[in-house]
C-alpha cells in the first residue's frame, strides 16, 4: 500500500455524485451492489455491454474486499461512491479492513490457465484507471474510472 495517491485523471474534470451505497461485506449482498452499479453506469451513458463490464469490475473489487480484506468477516462494511464524470463513471470503494498489499491482488499471467486472480485481471482490463491507497485512519480506498468508448 502506498501513501496518498496522485488524483485520478477523472478528478481533473467535473464529477457529480450519483449514489452512495453502504453494504454489509457479505457475499449474498453482492447482487445489491451489482444492481446499483448497473443503474449508475446506464445513467452515465454506457451501453449494455460496457455496463456489464463495469458491473463485473466493481463486483470483483468487492469480492476482493470481502474475501481478502475482511476475510469473510460479515461485520465489515463496504462504502461505494459512484460519480458521473464528463467522460464516464468514477467509483470509489472504501473499507475498514486491514491494509491490503497491492501485490497480493495483482493479476496473474493469463497464459497460466488455472483458477485464481482472474478478478484483478478483470478490474484492470475493464477499467481505464485502478488505484489502491490507504484510507486516512485505516482501511483501504480503491478508485476506479471507466471512460465511455463513444467519447473521443
Amino acid at each position: 500500500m502506498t501513501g496518498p495517491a496522485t488524483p485520478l485523471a477523472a478528478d481533473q474534470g467535473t464529477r457529480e455524485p450519483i449514489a452512495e451505497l453502504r453494504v454489509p461485506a457479505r457475499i449474498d449482498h453482492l447482487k445489491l451492489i451489482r444492481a446499483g452499479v448497473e443503474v449508475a453506469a446506464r445513467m452515465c451513458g454506457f451501453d449494455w455491454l460496457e455496463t456489464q463490464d463495469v458491473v463485473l469490475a466493481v463486483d470483483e473489487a468487492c469480492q476482493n474486499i470481502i474475501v481478502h480484506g475482511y476475510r469473510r468477516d460479515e461485520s465489515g462494511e463496504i462504502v461505494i461512491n459512484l460519480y458521473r464524470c464528463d467522460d464516464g463513471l468514477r467509483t470509489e470503494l472504501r473499507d475498514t479492513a486491514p491494509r491490503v498489499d497491492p501485490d497480493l491482488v495483482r493479476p496473474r499471467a493469463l497464459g497460466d490457465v488455472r483458477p485464481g486472480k482472474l478478478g484483478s485481471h478483470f478490474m484492470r482490463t475493464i477499467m481505464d484507471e485502478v488505484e489502491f491507497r490507504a484510507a486516512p485512519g485505516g482501511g483501504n480506498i480503491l478508485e476506479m474510472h471507466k471512460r465511455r468508448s463513444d467519447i473521443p
Partner: protein
Amino acid sequence: MSETPTPPNGRRVIHLDGSVDLEHTPDIRDVLLNAVALGGDVLVDLSAVTYIDSSGIACLIEALHEAREQGADLGLVSVSTQAMRVLKLARLDMVFPIHADLASATRALARA
C-alpha cells in the same frame, strides 16, 4: 442449475442458469466436479447464464482440468452473450471447446 436426466451418447449435460457468481459457485463447483468424476465427457450449457464472475470461470477451469486429467473433455454449449464476453476478457474462449448447440457438441465429441 440442472442436469439432463438421460445423457445423450453417454455425455453428461449440465445446464447453468441465472447468476454464476461467488454466492452460487460452491454448489456449482460440486455439481461440475461430480459430473466429471462419473467419467466421460461433460457439456455445460450456458445459454441461460445472465451473469458470470471470476469464481464461475474458475469453476469451469477446474472442471476442465479434472476432465482432461481423466482423459475426457469438458465443452461449453450455447454460451450466452454475457458469459462469452467474460470468457473473452479472461482470454479463455480459445481454451474451452465451445459449441453453438448441443447437437454440434455431440457431433464434435463423437469425432474426437
